[in-house]
């Protein structure tokens, strides 16, 4: 391209861009990173495209709610739909059984309505767009409705329909139980062998891999007392991942670790998310939030991977509500505060979990 134009300056644009990845399910992003989808369209949008290859994603569980399983299921299903090999480890006796609960992708876009607010009517008169940011996503036209599921970067998954058998019987799924082995050596070897298939070299990527580890420090695992061993395992896994075209997602309940360990694990992650349970039938919360009835939990984004760049990713909002639309589709929405009647607004107390723009300042007007 630079040869076509007359050069105005002595700088010339380097047009040799990394080739677009040939493998399905991968997308190139800024700074030469290649993304793979998390399986949740909203999460991909929030993270700026998906999970970058070679990164370690850690999800902090809430011991009171199984929402991390929703994230894992979507992640694993997406990988299987795109024919990406998967390594799954969990502390249960029979991890294969979990594969039966993976959701199936939705076949056509028409099935799922984009209308987030079903009560919204087309009024001729004045429309007040309360919480207007909700409506931004609606105006995007559907370009991909003619593509079939295999070639879509990120599918919507129907959590009520299990994944078809033919995806599960493929040879590329490896399941491990981490409950019984007394130490992590065997697990580490298994991961090394799996990740060797995707080692990075300068040729184009043939396929990417996914590693999903559930509840890594669950108390019923024999090694759960050995905090330094677990940390060393994560460190070596991160090193192996960096060197390969794969993404690892590890979920762990931070309250079961000592505080210093928990901090170390949070620091070692490239992308750090956390899920939180919400109290049931809480009238205060129901008054504060719209859509409380449909919410099942909260998702917080603590850290987003910045690969090949020194510019940190700053998100507009870090707390999202996890909702199941029609009890099938996982959506993440920004928290919307309901109009409050203000009678209780005596103190201005803000917690750190809400959007990054609210700060307790000393200036109160």
């Amino acid at each position: 391209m630079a040869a076509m134009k007359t050069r105005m300056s002595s700088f010339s644009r380097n047009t040799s861009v990394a080739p677009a990845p040939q493998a399905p399910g991968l997308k190139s992003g800024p700074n030469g990173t290649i993304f793979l989808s998390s399986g949740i369209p909203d999460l991909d949008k929030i993270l700026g495209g998906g999970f970058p290859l070679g990164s370690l994603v850690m999800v902090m569980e809430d011991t009171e709610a199984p929402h991390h399983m929703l994230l894992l299921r979507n992640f694993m299903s997406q990988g299987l739909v795109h024919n990406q090999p998967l390594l799954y480890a969990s502390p249960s006796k029979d991890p294969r059984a979990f594969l039966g609960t993976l959701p199936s992708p939705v076949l056509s876009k028409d099935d799922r309505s984009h209308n987030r607010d079903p009560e919204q009517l087309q009024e001729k008169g004045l429309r007040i767009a309360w919480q207007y940011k909700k409506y931004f996503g609606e105006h995007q036209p559907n370009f991909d409705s003619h593509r079939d599921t295999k070639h879509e970067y990120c599918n919507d998954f129907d959590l009520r329909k299990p994944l078809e058998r033919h995806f599960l019987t493929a040879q590329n799924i490896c399941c491990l139980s981490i409950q019984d082995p007394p130490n992590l050596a065997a697990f580490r070897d298994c991961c090394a062998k799996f990740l060797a298939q995707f080692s990075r070299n300068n040729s184009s990527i043939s396929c990417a891999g996914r590693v999903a580890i559930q509840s890594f420090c669950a108390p019923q695992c024999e090694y759960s007392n050995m905090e330094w061993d677990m940390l060393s395992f994560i460190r070596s896994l991160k090193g192996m991942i960096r060197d390969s075209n794969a993404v690892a997602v590890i979920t762990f309940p931070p309250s079961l670790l000592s505080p210093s360990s928990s901090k170390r694990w949070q620091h070692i992650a490239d992308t750090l998310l956390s899920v939180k349970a919400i109290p049931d039938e809480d009238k205060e919360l129901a008054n504060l939030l719209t859509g409380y009835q449909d919410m099942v939990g909260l998702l917080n984004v603590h850290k987003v991977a910045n690969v090949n760049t020194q510019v940190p990713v700053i998100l507009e909002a870090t707390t999202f509500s996890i909702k199941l639309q029609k009890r099938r589709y996982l959506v993440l929405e920004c928290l919307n505060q309901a109009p409050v009647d203000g009678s209780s607004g005596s103190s201005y107390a803000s917690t750190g979990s809400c959007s990054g723009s609210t700060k307790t300042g000393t200036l109160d007007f």
Partner: protein
Amino acid sequence: MAESICRNLRDGALEGEHAPALSIKDSIATPFGSDVFNYVLTKLSSNILAGKSQSQGIVLVAFSRSPSFYVDFLKTNGIDLVSAKKWISILDCYTDPLGWKDSLKGPLDTKNFSLKDPIEAVLFRHVRNLDLLLSAIIEMGEALAGQGKGRFSVSIDSVTEMFRHASLPSVANLLSKVRSHDRISSTFWLLHSDLHEIRAIAALEYLSSMVGSLEPMNLSLNGQRGDLEKLSLLEQNSRKGKFHVRFKRRNGRVRVMCEDFHIKQSGINFTPVSSEEGIINQGLLPKVQFNLQLSEKERIDRAKVVLPFEHQGNGEPMHIYDGRRSLSEGKDEKASVLTENLQTNEDSGKGEIIYFRDSDDEMPDSDEDPDDDLDI
């Protein structure tokens, strides 16, 4: 609410799901965990006898009380023990947990009880070997529930005792295997929270689907309290307390409930919370920043504000303030409310706005815009 716990245990597990597990936590401030445990045991037993529950039998792993205690307890609480061998068995880890008596005296017969006793109690001597314990529990349970698909419940007298003999991962392993076993309908256990590390308690809470914790009625503050007050607090705490339960529901939400309990001679009574609001919600979100309505006090204060304008908007005839304080003071003394006068007098003493009108021709509140004569 204790009712709903018992109902949850009675209903048991769905196919493919883990069994519901209740953790009862107490501490030295309210040492009534065993009363709650016995209450739950009684309720479950009556449900089993009445045929209402999913489980067909209970395996009680007794660490901290002897089997005879349980026999007597169930008898006094009206549970019919005639056919008890069909629906309850006790694994006796109380009499000789580590097999010391056995090694001292030589081999004895395994059954501690004579055949006349109503409940089958099997002596267990190897509490350090949790695999053996688990298989003993499963064996006893399957004997109760029969060969087919029948299920049974497991109750563990005190997990605290288990921790004395085994490490956290192995106890957690046993409990998770119990929960995930396909013949177990429900399970519940007791633990004393001040005898364990936070990690151990967190692990047990992680493994349970309902956590019931006993708390004292009045959390004593560290302020200056007289001895009499302290005694009365102790008195209150000695018989009563609060029972907080956190349910993990299937939809991923947590239900928090609270009840008062009262220990009487006959047992424990649960009553709904009598005092004011139960739980102070931590608040995941900030409170609103602005307040659109005024409280009563604020409304009164607003009415009292003396506006710096010429007419006060309250129907009084307008008078132009021309810098002579004596006029306003004279007017004020005639007013009926004296306290407000004092206030305004004092206020006028602090700061003054001295305003001399340009001319007396100006009508008050004329509609002319003083900027009209600017030529822009």
